[in-house]
């Protein structure tokens, strides 16, 4: 292995990345994905436009209205309209839900006869509707308790890892896992396929440059650039999204480095079977984005998966990295947990296997 060759290739790659402005994509796209999606995917629903139709007009009904007006979850408005008019407001997308307090509500409640409050929620977006349903019930239960109504059970909920149930805490680390799977793979694939498409690959084919030298020279740039990205994304998570970082930075960094190597390995495999940059781009996105999303645990916990999806989740490296990532951010067990150690080694195995297969398949000749 000749160090001079690797140095020359590296210098060329970095000059090219800089002058072709590709470097912007390297740093802009991951940050953009994390920031946009971090802000964009919000399960918490606030300021829901709520219409309260108060046909009772009593102390209790006013109390209900107050309860809905003092939380950030609802923007309550009291209107004196018919059911149909209220429905129309939802159809016009001017309200998200309406609550009807019927005539004689307080009276009925006091006399313990049947009292019913009807809540109509726009169910177009089911998750939003389910969330709102929970909020509404919460508000009413609170109200009842305050008024001295006994509830037989009390649920004492303790949230692990993400005590305040902030969406960001769960989503942002997951997004880091997703971008670090997609982005390095794309750059690694493009760096090699570009040479094939343009024809400069002949400089490698017809010269004494060895396969290993070429691979090292091609894979180091994305590796180094994205190593820096692990810091940038860390800062975005901790400072912009205020995600707590409880665990070991060393674990985060090491796992990320191995994970970048895995991603680059995927890019290498793509570069072997494609000869045009567009194809390489599309193919990389296809094989990384979907598993990246589905098996990351952002959308659905791995423990909820069954059958094929359970197996697939274990086949893709995303799950293992995300486990370590959440540990570093939220759990902080580090290497004390045997599971973490196991997953760490699985990642190392993936990295070595992918890079090994890639370097075996890379041929120093025309197809």
């Amino acid at each position, binding site marked *: 292995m*000749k160090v*001079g*060759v690797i*140095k*020359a*290739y590296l*210098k*060329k790659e970095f*000059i*090219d990345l800089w*002058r*072709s402005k590709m470097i912007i994509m390297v740093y802009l796209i991951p940050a953009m994905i994390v920031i946009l999606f971090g802000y964009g995917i919000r399960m918490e629903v606030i300021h829901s436009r709520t219409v309260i139709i108060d046909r009772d007009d009593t102390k209790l009904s006013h109390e209900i209205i107050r309860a809905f007006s003092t939380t950030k979850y609802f923007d309550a408005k009291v209107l004196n309209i018919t059911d149909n008019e209220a429905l129309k407001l939802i159809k016009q997308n001017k309200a998200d839900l309406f609550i009807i307090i019927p005539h004689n509500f307080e009276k009925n409640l006091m006399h313990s006869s049947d009292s019913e409050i009807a809540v109509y929620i726009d169910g177009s977006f089911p998750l939003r509707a389910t969330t709102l349903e929970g909020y509404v019930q919460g508000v009413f239960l609170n109200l009842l308790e305050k008024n001295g109504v006994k509830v037989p059970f009390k649920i004492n909920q303790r949230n692990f890892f993400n005590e305040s149930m902030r969406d960001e805490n769960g989503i942002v680390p997951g997004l880091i896992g997703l971008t670090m799977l997609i982005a390095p793979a794309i750059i690694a694939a493009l760096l090699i396929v570009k040479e094939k498409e*343009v*024809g*400069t690959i*002949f*400089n490698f*084919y*017809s*010269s*004494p*440059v*060895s396969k290993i030298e070429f691979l090292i020279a091609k894979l180091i740039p994305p590796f180094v650039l994205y190593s820096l990205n692990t810091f940038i994304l860390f800062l975005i998570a901790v400072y912009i999204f205020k995600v707590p970082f409880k665990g070991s930075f060393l674990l985060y960094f090491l796992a990320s480095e191995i994970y970048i190597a895995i991603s680059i390995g995927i890019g290498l495999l793509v570069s072997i079977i494609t000869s045009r940059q567009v194809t390489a781009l599309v193919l990389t996105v296809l094989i990384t984005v979907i598993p990246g999303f589905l098996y990351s645990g952002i959308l659905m916990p791995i423990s909820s998966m069954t059958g094929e999806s359970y197996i697939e989740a274990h086949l893709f490296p995303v799950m293992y990295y995300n486990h370590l990532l959440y540990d570093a951010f939220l759990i902080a067990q580090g290497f004390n947990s045997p599971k973490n150690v196991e997953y760490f080694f699985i990642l190392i195995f993936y990295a070595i296997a992918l890079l090994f297969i890639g370097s075996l398949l890379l*041929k*120093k*000749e*025309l197809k």
Partner: protein
Amino acid sequence: MLEVRNVTVKYGNIVGVRNVSFKANSGEIIGFIGADGAGKSSTMHAIAGVKRFEGEIVFNGYAYHSPKEAEKIKPYLSLMPQGLGLVLYDNLSVKEHFEFFRNIRGVKKDIDYETRLLKMAGLYEFQDRLAGHLSGGMRQKLSLILALLPRPKLLILDEPTTGVDPISRKELWEIVDEFRKKEGIIALISTAYMQEAEKMDKLLLFDEGEVIAKGNAKELKESIKDYTYEGEIEREDCFSFNNRTYCLKPLNLKKAPPLLEGVFFVNALKKGKKNLKINLEEKDVKLPEVVVKAVGLTKKFGNFIADDHIDLELKSGEILGLLGANGAGKTTFIKMLLGLYPIDEGELYLLGKRIKSYEDRLELKSKIGYMSQRFALYEEMSVKENMEYFAKMHDLSPKETKEKIEYFSTLFGFKKYLNDFPKDLPLGINQRFSLSVALLHEPVVLFLDEPTSGVDTIARATFWRFLREIKEKWKISILITTHYMSEAEYCDRVVVLKRGKKIVDEEVKKLHEKFPGLSFEEIFIKYYEESG
């Protein structure tokens, strides 16, 4: 010593080249000649160890049978693949290329040597320029000196001069020649220019994946002297090109010393190929004497003046050759004539009408036929679908369209390819098909931008016969650019551009009278060098 023994190269089930064998000694230049796809590149790739092959290659006593085994000889060889500056990185400067190649080839910095190379290539002053900003000719020269940088013992150049102007071509050739003498290298060079092939020590003639003849230029020419006659005639069993006629049957014509390209014609005849019959009916067209007139046309790109006050007249029924080095402003000029570039200064008249606005242009688009360097037609559509599309765009009725397709495909001999896709056709067929598309709407003037680049000799000969027929029978004016100086002989008049200025505007006949005994290429170079 290089010895190639029974080398066969396959691409899947398709055979690129079959059973090639030859020997080469140090200091020799071996020329590979033949049509596109005849197997030249495949052979070169096998020798350079970048493509799997069957058979054996021995270089200086070391035998190899696969790219893997060829690794051992790679320190001693340089390959320059086909295409303008394919091995260059657009974002690296000339200087950075030297540094990169020096390092990957593991050669020490030798300032004297590198300066010599840079000066030879005329790139000494452009060391800080990015490769992406170099002209085509400069890119080829840079690729060549980079190939020479590690002082290879085996130099493989795949069509280094295609698409390169005569001046750069001459310089490229001088560099190679000097090296071969000084360093005693073996050079394998493929070329489409017969003048270059003449200078090689040994020639391999490729045809349809096989080597059909070997020997030096003299021997090859000698082999066809019985079939070579002077002058040009129209016959189905004869080919004529460059004032020679080749025929297997004895003709009642004077014998003439054969030209190297004759080898292709004779080979085609021996394979039973027939000369395409050309039969255009006379058309009675009344056109003004001057079809296109440009006065002081100027085009600037920033500070760079691509065309500087160029006057030009294109007369009816005339073939005008527009010549010049790469980057002299020919393509820009044609694009101004076509209205693809706005004119910065000057006036343009078409059929006596001043062209100013977009609307003027639109009105006259149907009078113009254009064929670009890449014969650019739609690859996703079959030949017929392409023709139908262009016919509709030119407002031809379905009946006319059908007739025209029938007429042109018969006339230009591509009828059996009508349902094929352009990318599956030989270059020569594509070229004629593109020409027929340019002629579909019966234009009065044709603009052809390097229509013969990369096309094999026989196809070029046929193409020129068509051009002359079209000019004579249909009275169409033709403006053509080309890098083949022998083709300029077919033009009635030539205009030469140099760095955006017109330096020659003269009838070809008169130029020959002025410089008796010189070939047109020599005349061209003379003008170019003298004009400073």
